[in-house]
């Protein structure tokens, strides 16, 4: 029988008794049949509505376990059985208590079940966003196929208003695409040939074709859903406390109830009926459910909401750690800056300097090399063949060009090359303009400089100031030169700069910063993986369709630094809600049990079993509701304007 049915049965049968309870003191109206009617009504309630509680309580009892049903079963069965005994020995009965308690608890469960489903289904719904079919090119023609028949390498066509079926790269055409369901970015994004598209986003105005690169479980959407599901069901360390409490909770309450009865009956000398009412109230009001639901429901709603904003929080542990973070460390390139360095100045014999540099950098994949090669290509500069090629980590490259020793790199590599004072001062002034300077050396002499600039993202300054207003210390970590790093730092408002760090030393630097409090590291997931995992909280900034799931505790789908602050805000809100839930769940039991036990009887404050039942039903409901409301709370952030 469904909970809802059980609830209606008990409500309808309990109603006459409720009417009598209200009318009797006023009009003296009595239920026809009196105690016998009550016995019949309550017996039906116990047999139909309450039976599952009894079954479950018995089943767990046999396994040496106890749960909420144990309490409900013990409480109502005691009231019911005692009333039968009292009826035949001519004493006061309280059948209605048993019936009311069952009704109220079932009401609570009906509402709670709805709420719980609300809290958990949000992410599953994400998967419904997927297109069901797509136009796929087969044998030279586009035909409609169900999405599960698309394989990697297929060419797909997307018309205006259609959904992009899977992840891929645009082959022809261009369009604006609404990616809000994945990234949380509200503005449509312009896409052209060569750009990546994400499955389940919506094409707005253009028609384009793209090559499927990721299908099925590999798509970004599937990965996000997988990650969020894991996060939602993960444990927060704060739960260890409730785990311990819930193990002993029910037996302890039963013992307290027996003690209550003994104290009232034996020591104070109250009647059996009154003592029993106190004991039953204790059993009924105690609610382990609220404690058990406090953390998981809030975690579920919080992480689900994050996913909608393009902020993926990996688990409850991360969420809890974020609250203690005192320092936020940023990688420079690609995180604070755009990550697209461009050559701004060439000092010396421009053509020759670029020629030497380009010849050496031709096969390098360093971002600075890319910038140099781009300039060399646009200026149509010819290359020479480099021999004895050496790449020196964190310094640059050296090689032999037509028998002459040559190098491209920073001043660390320059040691046995001569450099004029004029070049030295030009280098310093370029660096003060936040430009990275690459030295080009040939035949024992530095022949010129190439200045490369990687501009900060427009949003970086705003993002950093938001973090600082939270009282967090901001640090920038970079392999770049001190002057350049300092110049960028002052542009965006970073507190501390650690410059000239070798890529392999980044995680050591993070380790050192951990000495003065918890550290969050923000970087891209690929190059910064060691630093991300060394930090207490690794925040990986995503770009494209690869989410760096393994390296970061928090993954930002959008490449927007302001999301760091939003992620912190969301984590704090969620964790705050968990603490609030736990506080109420504890307080509720800590205060409710003594009141139910009649500790405040002298003050005229007592709880009847039915009120206790109502209170217990609503305690878990209120916890779940409070968690669901997390969906509605404002994530206060200084960068709300986005």
């Amino acid at each position: 029988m469904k909970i809802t049915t059980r609830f209606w049965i008990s409500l309808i049968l309990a109603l006459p008794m409720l009417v009598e309870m209200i009318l009797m003191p006023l009009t003296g109206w009595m239920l026809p049949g009196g105690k016998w009617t009550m016995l019949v009504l309550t017996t039906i309630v116990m047999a139909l509505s309450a039976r599952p509680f009894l079954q479950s309580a018995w089943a767990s009892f046999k396994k040496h376990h106890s749960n909420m049903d144990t309490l409900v079963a013990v409480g109502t069965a005691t009231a019911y059985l005692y009333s039968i005994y009292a009826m035949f020995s001519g004493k006061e009965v309280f059948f209605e208590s048993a019936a009311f308690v069952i009704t109220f608890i079932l009401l609570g469960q009906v509402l709670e079940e709805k709420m719980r489903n609300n809290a958990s289904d949000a992410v599953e719904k994400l998967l419904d966003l997927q297109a069901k079919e797509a136009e796929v090119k087969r044998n030279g023609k586009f035909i409609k196929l169900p999405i599960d028949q698309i394989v990697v390498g297929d060419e797909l066509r997307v018309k205006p208003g259609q959904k992009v079926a899977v992840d891929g790269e645009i082959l022809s055409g261009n369009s604006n695409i609404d990616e809000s369901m994945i990234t949380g970015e509200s503005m449509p994004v312009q896409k052209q040939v060569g750009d990546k598209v994400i499955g389940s986003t919506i094409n707005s105005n253009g028609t384009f074709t793209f090559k499927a690169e990721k299908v099925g479980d590999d798509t970004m959407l599937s990965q996000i859903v997988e990650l969020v599901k894991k996060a939602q069901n993960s444990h927060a360390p704060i739960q260890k406390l409730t785990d311990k409490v819930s193990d002993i909770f029910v037996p302890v309450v039963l013992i307290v109830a027996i003690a209550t009865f003994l104290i009232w009956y034996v020591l104070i000398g109250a009647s059996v009926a009154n003592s029993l009412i106190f004991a039953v109230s204790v059993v009924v009001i105690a609610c382990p459910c609220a404690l058990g639901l406090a953390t998981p429901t809030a975690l579920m709603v919080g992480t689900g909401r994050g996913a909608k904003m393009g902020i993926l929080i990996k688990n409850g542990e991360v969420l809890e750690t974020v609250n203690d973070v005192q320092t936020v460390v940023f990688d420079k390139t690609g995180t604070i800056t755009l990550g697209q360095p461009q050559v701004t100045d060439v000092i010396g014999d421009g053509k020759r300097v670029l020629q030497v540099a380009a010849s050496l950098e031709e096969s390098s994949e360093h971002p600075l090399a890319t910038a140099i090669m781009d300039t060399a290509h646009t200026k149509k500069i010819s290359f020479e063949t480099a021999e004895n090629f050496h790449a020196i980590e964190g310094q640059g490259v050296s090689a032999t060009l037509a028998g002459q020793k040559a190098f491209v790199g920073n001043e660390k590599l320059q040691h046995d090359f001569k450099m004029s004072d004029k070049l030295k001062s030009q280098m310093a002034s370029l660096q003060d303009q936040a430009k990275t300077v690459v030295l080009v050396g040939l035949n024992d002499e530095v022949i010129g400089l190439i200045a490369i600039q990687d501009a900060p993202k427009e949003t970086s300054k705003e993002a950093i100031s938001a973090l600082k207003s939270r009282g967090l210390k901001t640090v920038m970590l970079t392999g770049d030169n001190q002057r350049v790093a300092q110049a960028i730092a002052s542009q965006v408002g970073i507190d501390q700069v650690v410059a000239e760090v070798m890529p392999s030393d980044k995680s050591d630097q993070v380790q050192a910063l951990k000495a003065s409090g918890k550290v969050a590291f923000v970087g891209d997931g690929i190059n910064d993986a060691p630093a991300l995992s060394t930090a207490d909280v690794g925040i990986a900034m995503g770009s494209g369709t690869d989410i760096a799931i393994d390296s970061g505790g928090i993954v930002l789908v959008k490449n927007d630094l302001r999301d760091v602050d939003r992620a912190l805000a969301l984590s704090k809100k969620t964790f705050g809600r968990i603490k609030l839930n736990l506080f109420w769940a504890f307080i509720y039991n800590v205060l409710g049990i003594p009141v139910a036990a009649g500790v405040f009887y002298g003050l005229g404050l007592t709880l009847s079993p039915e009120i206790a039942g109502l209170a217990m039903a609503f305690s878990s409901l209120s916890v779940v509701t409070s968690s669901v409301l997390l969906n509605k709370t404002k994530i206060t952030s200084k960068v709300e304007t986005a």
Partner: protein
Amino acid sequence: MTKTIVTIVGLALVGFIIWWFFGKHETESEIADVAADNQSIDVEVNGGYSPETVVLKQGVPATLNFTRKDPSSCLDRVVFPDFGINQELPQNETKEVKIDTSQAGEYEWACGMDMFHGKIVIK
């Protein structure tokens, strides 16, 4: 006289509760049936899980078949935090839960309210 008897009965009941719920009691443990490329085990959900500990062989894909007999809504979901599984268990229906056994270790599962626990041991 009645009061003395009631007190003794009450205290005896307290003693019984402590012994019954907190005393050391053996939990059921069961090793999954391993076929060539699959292993499976039936878990009955009734006032807890039986068996409560499931031993799986590493590297062989595993299926746990949960059947909830218990009417309690406490047990209407089974959650494996380590695997990100949150499976609804409608009463008297068998639901399959697939477990990735590539990593050896002990993994707990729990009911939706974290009141009942079970454990998988992969070795």
